């Protein structure tokens, strides 16, 4: 997807272009999810911010800039 709520978002497409930190984050939330397996941020079309990473405010930000690391 390229823009909040676009056709790609409605189909649950990848959030890399929105800045997703998922590939840089070691976590099982894609599998276990949250609130008893109900959902996760990618499921509501918002990129991962790597929030389980130690010092993520400094290590994972900026959150809306797509990059390769």
């Amino acid at each position: 997807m390229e823009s909040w709520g676009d056709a790609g978002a409605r189909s649950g497409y990848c959030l890399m272009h929105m800045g997703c930190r998922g590939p840089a984050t070691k976590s099982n939330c894609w599998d276990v999810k949250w609130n008893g397996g109900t959902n996760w941020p990618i499921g509501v079309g918002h990129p991962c911010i790597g929030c389980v990473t130690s010092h993520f405010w400094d290590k994972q930000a900026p959150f809306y800039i797509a990059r390769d690391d």
Partner: protein
Amino acid sequence: MEIYIPVITSNGNGVANPGSQRIVIDPLTRIEGHLRIEAIVSNGKVIDAWSSSTMFRGMEMILKNRDPREAWLFTQRACGVCTTVHAIASVRAVENALGITVPDNARLIRNLIEAAQYVQDHVIHFYHLHAMDWVDVPNALKADAAQTGALQRSISPWPNNSTAYFAGVQARLKGLVDSGQLGIFANGYWGHPAMKLPPEGNLLAVAHYLEALDWQREFIKIHAVLGGKSPHVQSYVVGGVSAAVDPTNPTAINPTKIAMMRDLVNKAVTFVNQVYYPDLLLVASFYKDWAGWGGGLGNFLAYGDFPGSIDNNPANFWLPRGLVWNQQLSTPPTALNPALISEYVTHSWYSYTGGDQAGKHPSQGETVPNYTGPAAPFNFLNTDAKYSWLKTPRYQDQAVEVGPLARMLVAYAGGHAAVKSKVAEALAALGVGPAALFSTLGRTAARGIETVLVVGKMAGWLNELEANILGGRLAVADTTRWNPASWPATASGWGWTEAPRGALGHWVNISGGKIVNYQMVVPTTWNGSPRDAQGQRGAFESALIGTPVADANKPLEILRTIHSFDPCMACAVHLMDTHERTLTEIHIEA
């Protein structure tokens, strides 16, 4: 790991009146965060009190030079109990600065997230934070299970009402007590003379304490559907929400997910109306004397919330904006002008350029910490000087209270039909008049009344959202100003919300696409504030005056009133330094 055991020190030193003693409660427990209360108790009553926040955190300095579109991801983490509220205030502040209007689906999704937060938060507060001030847990072991069932059936149609059910809860409690370690029930004021519930009332409340834990875990899945998870919903974006909606696509918010949320809402309507609200009235009926204590300031402020239109016109808010002064409910609330908000640091551990006697509007806010208090260990703060990490918000230089009571009173005074009706029903059920609203009892009842009303609104917002989706109106965000290249060189804005604990405001100044100043004025900052430059007490301090204290070593009555405000200190304490000064580091080991 540090274990916090409340320290009650009481000492006649330094107090002029014989027969008086100065007591300290630090930390005050069953709140969020770190609060210290000092009070003078004379002839069994509080005659003066001081509220001190004992921790500072540094939220806004972290925001300096960051992308304003990200601010909400940081500010939301001010507190996970009051999750969502600092996110919505932040995105609204940036949307206000940049002139962005969110689409109707975003308005509805945001209303639903906030409403779910109120309902879960207020239920948890009543049972898991406030109840042990009124419910004597070990005393439940003396209850007759059959009579408890009869009591339950007399107050509500809730089906968990059999003798066997209550006997089971009692057996479970007995196992805990017999173990010798009370666990979550340790250190309560069990057996205190001010505990008035019969054993059956205590057993009923303990049963519901446990049921509420299970109920809220399921209910909050609404946040997961709309926001990915809770705490810290992650579907806000500046411009709306990220959560896509679609009539058929399984990955979007679709009618199937709406049906799931509708089911959770229905269960919540039942739980709130058949468990929380009847329990509130039952407990209140044994504590009607608390209609006479804890009133405090009598001035109330609400920003209002739950927009009914995408232009955010306060005239279309479901909870109205305004102020009630001097307990006056027979005249309409006065209009709120956010320019009249200021923060003082006269009695707060901060310095202002230009001196500490004048207040500053949050858009010109400064936060330079300046701890002038005693070095630990110490007995008392010097409350003639600076004594808290909370700043002192004032409106038109007056002290005001915020929270569910403020919202219900502003709505009541403005003629809000649903609020007036429910308030009248509650007062009649308790056999008290409107004067009872201005008290600890009134504040506690207002929280329950508000919960009934808010949970009752959720189905309508779900229906509106579904109608939009089925009608093909699928926009969830205005992205025309997403790119910083579209922004003016400078911009400033105010973001408002009614958090469960009260009026919350964020002020942002943006320059060159980055945050240059950010201030948060939070409900517990208003309520827990120290004195201002004129020595006017804050809401906690004022509410404690006149509170009876049967035993200065077990100041249960002080807890009852402070808990009625539902303090969140983590939200209340925050700061930003715009001048890159090195600040003291405080390490809290856990």
